[in-house]
């Protein structure tokens, strides 16, 4: 069963990884998105993430469902609140029988998350504050 969490609590890799472990699976792909300092000439100091939490969790469950129906396991955690450089904004882990599926599904989750899930970032850059990218 998938695990989805949107929370102000810092994201720790190890306990999320453990949720993906199962003798059925041989391949686990994990994507971790972190707060990057430079985007071209723009320097970021911190990012605040906010979410329409109930809808975001519902949309993530819809993304996870077809993967779980095909035998994979999906673990997604997204931060809200204020993050500093190198803090983890998002963790997407997918366990599968074989590695090709794990990679494909993990990429599918993060790509869809970035387009369909109501979470927003407010970037505090050194020159100004920016919503979104």
């Amino acid at each position, binding site marked *: 069963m998938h695990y989805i969490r949107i929370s102000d609590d810092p994201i720790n890799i190890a306990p999320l990884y453990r949720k993906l472990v199962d003798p059925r699976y041989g391949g686990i792909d994990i994507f971790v*998105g972190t707060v990057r300092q430079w985007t071209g000439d723009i320097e970021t100091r911190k990012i605040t*993430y*906010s*979410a*329409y939490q*109930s*809808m*975001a969790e*519902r*949309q993530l469950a819809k993304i996870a469902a077809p993967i779980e129906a095909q035998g994979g396991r999906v673990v997604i955690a*997204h931060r809200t609140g204020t993050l500093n450089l190198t803090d983890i*904004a*998002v963790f997407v882990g997918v366990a599968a029988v074989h590695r090709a599926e794990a990679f494909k599904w993990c990429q599918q989750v*993060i790509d869809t*998350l*970035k*387009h*369909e*899930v*109501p*979470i*927003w*970032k*407010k970037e505090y850059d050194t020159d100004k504050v920016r*919503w*979104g*990218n």
Partner: protein
Amino acid sequence: MQITIKLFAFLQDQLGPTVTVELDSPVTVEKIFSAVAKQSLAIKAVLENSRLAVNQEFVSENELEITPTDEIAIIPPVSGG
């Protein structure tokens, strides 16, 4: 009818967490966006790129059947991940 709309991100910064508007039936997506657009000039560009969600699902049809318990939200371009 009176409709309360949840706002997020830049829209929330500008107008607060909700706005309430008065609309004639039938309620449409266009009417909702027009009514919200009247609240502030600053939100025009973002509103043009936003989508409507009813009960936490994006809607694609223009005409809506809204009841007083429905949860209506305007979703500006997302930027999570």
